């Protein structure tokens, strides 16, 4: 049975699951049961951060156009354009043992593509979640349902894996941003136009 987290909660990952090396991070959401001119397109992305909370370069930003980190530790499995169906809409594989030592945190974010021009935000997205599973056994270990935590935000740092005393932990961050992907990138030290 997976541990269910609330916003801001932190939980052990490798300490309680000894030997865990490969995890699958699944992100899901439901959108747009209404008729309308603009479909929703949600994107997940990953920021690999140093101890200062910043990336060291563009290569530490893993998203649909840069699916694999140079270390081979983080792989984005691709963009789902519609968010249809239950279960994960997008998935990221993380090999914890391959994460470079200078990477202290791995932050997972979901953004709404073109949110401003389509007048969309997370208040119109339902059943959003992040879950961490053991990639080898497919056993779900941690789950955070975003539920009522968001409304007018267009970008959310859903959660982060982070190092703590030689182990990996997970933090259900749940912090929202307006303005989509760009302010999020700047927050993590990436220069974007």
């Amino acid at each position, binding site marked *: 049975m997976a541990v269910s987290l609330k916003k801001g909660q932190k939980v052990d990952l490798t300490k309680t699951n000894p030997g865990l090396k490969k995890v699958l991070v699944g992100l899901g959401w439901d959108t747009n049961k*209404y*008729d*309308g*001119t603009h479909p929703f397109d949600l994107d997940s992305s990953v920021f690999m951060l140093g101890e200062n909370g910043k990336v060291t370069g563009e290569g530490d930003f893993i998203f649909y156009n840069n699916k694999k980190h140079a270390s081979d530790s983080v792989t984005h499995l691709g963009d789902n354009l519609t968010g249809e169906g239950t279960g994960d809409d997008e998935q990221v594989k993380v090999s914890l043992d391959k994460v470079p030592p200078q990477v202290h945190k791995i932050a997972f974010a979901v953004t709404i593509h073109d949110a401003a021009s389509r007048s969309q*935000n997370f*208040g*119109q997205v339902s059943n959003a979640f992040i879950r961490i599973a053991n990639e080898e056994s497919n056993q779900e270990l941690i789950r955070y349902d975003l539920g009522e935590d968001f*409304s*007018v935000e267009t970008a959310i740092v859903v959660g982060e894996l982070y190092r703590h005393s030689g182990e990996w932990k997970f933090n259900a961050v749940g912090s929202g941003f307006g303005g989509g992907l760009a302010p999020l990138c700047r927050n993590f030290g990436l220069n974007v136009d």
Partner: protein
Amino acid sequence: MTVNPPGAAGRHFRSAVAEKRFAKPFYGGKNISVKENSLMNLMTDIGKRIPQPSQYGRLNVDTGEKIIHTGNIVLGSHLSVNQPVREIPRNRIPEASAPLADTGGPVPMKTGQKISLNQKVSDISRIVTALKWGAGNLRSGHDISVFMTDSANKTAEDNFIFYNHPASSCGSVLIGSDHGSGIKQHYDATVQMNLKLVPSHIQTLAITATIDERTFGQFRAASLGIIDAAAGKQVLSYSFAENLSEETAIVLAEIYRYKDEWRIAAIGRGFKGGLAALCENYGIEIENG
């Protein structure tokens, strides 16, 4: 013709008596003369006392066919409505005069936003949901309805509240009423709500609207207001139609339980399939034809 005496500032009073002419002492003993040959409503809103000693409130004179005066009354001069200040054809919706106490103004809501009603209104047993379609639009041809859904997002037949079944059996939802506040005169449609009477198995009250022969894209200026009837104040305002186009049935907002309180979510989205699509969305089967 009977005209209620001016009460305390903030009260509305209204008379609707057919009479060709009346001349009656009005504020400060001034006379007001109205010549019209039809049913006449004299409606004053003295909620706004204007600082200048010669001015007092707002007056609308509505003959039932047209509004022949709307504006501030200036005491010290006779108001003659024989020469209309402006005429508003009856089939258009007049700009409502500011009907409610002005204490900070309503908070604007954005689509997708969620707000606690318990924290916004003084008494959740006295809420009015009020709608304006925006000036220049026709008064008829659209209906407001409320789906009272359970936690499985299903609506029992008796919990679909609409023009033909305007009152829920629990007394929590009453279409066309306003807790006796008189607020409904200032809006195109109102729904009276008493959230304390909502049965515990009901999770959501979905405020919806349907339209005949047009689409909601033609009502971009429409707005939804949440009124704290106990305080006589509009607390929330939502321009729900800004992103609508071809829809013929829309969800304006959903009022729902969250933990120990009631929240409102600004939805402002809908369907091209009319009432049937709404019913499907809220788990009601309807017969065709």
